[in-house]
């Protein structure tokens, strides 16, 4: 009872903070926050592979980038393309790419999976770079207009207004995070965790391994695509460097590890920490990668369970609660 009350209070407080955030923080930090939020969603989808199913992807940016490109292309080439479908097109593109690659990707794990995703990630990157007629090459696609949010017969909300867009983007991301959180709680979600611990036994328990892995991959691809779509709408510019490059693939891995793999909220916290840090470090030096890298090494060496893991063990220590995570 007390626990559910806690959750309610936390939830209500979260909603209030999200609602008044633009008034409190101003337009600059509102956009910083949106950058954090899209990457939080993106990092969560990576963690569903890494922490939940136990495979490390070095090419996760391909889903994010494909989603971003799909949304940008739809908005550039189709006159009057509405806003919600534009976001969904991104998800669809990411999911479709995952579906196409799944026959290969679900049959490997460990290092082979990491290398294969790295190869496909780079392939898509180079493809986007060279296929200039469509993707604009290095310049990317820019200058598309973010369409208004039309609710037929009711209102049309102007999305070029940054505050309006903030509410829209946050709503999309919160809904996606809720769906993914729910996903981890379903019977299928427990199955995915079972694969991480012992794939062979899952097979012997009567579950189809490749199909189960494929569904998880497609779910991750779809929601990474949606994160990419929101990113495209936020930046109003999509180019290879920034959505498809190797840096974009590595960032969510760092976020997941720093926040805590295996915990649903770990990558969100990791994303927040990295973004805050970036904002601080940039005032002193341009070498953000150096600081991020050092922190990543420290986390791997001294706190492999990440911030969430450290928090849990500290809680267990201080309150003498017997809890094993």
């Amino acid at each position, binding site marked *: 009872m007390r626990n559910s009350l806690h959750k309610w209070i936390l939830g209500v407080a979260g909603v209030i903070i999200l609602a008044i955030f633009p008034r409190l923080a101003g337009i600059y930090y509102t956009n910083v926050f949106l950058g954090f939020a899209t990457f939080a969603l993106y990092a969560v989808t990576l963690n569903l592979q890494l922490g939940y199913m136990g495979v490390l992807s070095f090419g996760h940016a391909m889903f994010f980038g494909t989603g971003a490109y799909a949304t940008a292309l739809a908005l550039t080439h189709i006159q009057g393309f509405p806003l919600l479908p534009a976001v969904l097109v991104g998800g669809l593109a990411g999911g479709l790419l995952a579906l196409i690659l799944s026959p290969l990707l679900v049959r490997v794990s460990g290092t082979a999976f990491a290398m294969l995703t790295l190869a496909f990630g780079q392939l898509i990157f180079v493809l986007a770079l060279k296929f200039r007629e469509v993707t604009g090459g290095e310049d990317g696609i820019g200058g598309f207009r973010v369409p208004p949010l039309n609710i037929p017969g009711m209102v049309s909300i102007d999305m070029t207004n940054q505050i309006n867009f903030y509410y829209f983007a946050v709503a999309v991301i919160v809904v996606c995070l809720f769906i993914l959180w*729910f*996903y981890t*709680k*379903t*019977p*299928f*979600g*427990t*199955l995915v*965790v*079972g694969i*991480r*611990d*012992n794939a*062979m*036994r*899952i*097979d*012997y*328990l*009567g*579950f*189809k*391994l490749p199909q*189960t892995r494929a*569904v998880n991959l497609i779910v991750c691809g779809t929601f990474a695509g949606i994160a990419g779509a929101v990113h495209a709408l936020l930046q109003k510019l999509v180019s290879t460097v920034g959505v498809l490059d190797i840096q974009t693939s590595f960032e969510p891995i760092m976020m997941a590890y720093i926040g805590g793999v295996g915990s649903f909220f770990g990558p969100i916290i990791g994303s927040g920490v990295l973004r805050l840090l970036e904002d601080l470090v940039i005032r002193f030096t341009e070498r953000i990668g150096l600081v991020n890298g050092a922190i990543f090494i420290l986390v791997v060496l001294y706190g492999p369970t990440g911030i969430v893991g450290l928090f849990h063990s500290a809680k267990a220590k201080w309150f003498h609660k017997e809890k*094993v995570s």
Partner: protein
Amino acid sequence: MNILETKGLYHDFSGLQVLFGVDLQVQEGERHAVIGPNGAGKTTLFNVITGTYQPSRGQVYFKGKEITGAKPHELTRLGMGRSFQITSTFNRLTTFQNIRLAILSKKAIRFQLFRKVDKMQDITRETDEVLKRINLDRERDLPAGMLSYGKHRSLEISLALATDPDLIMLDEPTAGMSRDETHHAVELIRRLTEGKTVVIIEHDMDVIFSLADRITVLHYGQILASGPPAEIKQNQAVKDAYLGELEV
């Protein structure tokens, strides 16, 4: 009726011949032990039957249907369960979650994405019942990897049993257990496999002669003898190859 039958089963590991035409027959409802010295091919026979390996020659029949080369999940769905010699559980999941996966499989809940598993009362109830029956209800929320060796082995066996198979293949269920733990494990197996067909690999002669209805002796990849325990005890070839020095 034979629930499980192999005909002329051969298997080799890139040249190293392990099974030489094994004809195993297991009748429905019996407890059938497979014994033999180390390296006789007992576990390989299990692996070929349960789909880990493909046999290089020969056929396997289960419930009268040919299942040669079928995949593990297909066999499980047909009603075959197996446990492993080397404990193979979901070590970072709790005991409860381990068994729950087996219960989900038994109920054919595989791609359920629209309900929370914690809210599925029938699944929770059934899992708790299983935990009680295998005396692991006190370890319900402990990660499987933190269980004591004996309890971990019990969980291993129970994972195979919890899908409610018609044929249960147990690969050395009491491997590495203390005398006491072995006693408990045997009781557990006896209790949980009531009325089911069991094929069991064992080294412990006490376990075999107290559990088994029929025994098959495997020696260098071939069946040396097959019959009721009393008959096997008297068999001269078996005595020479395996039992002789044990004086049973």
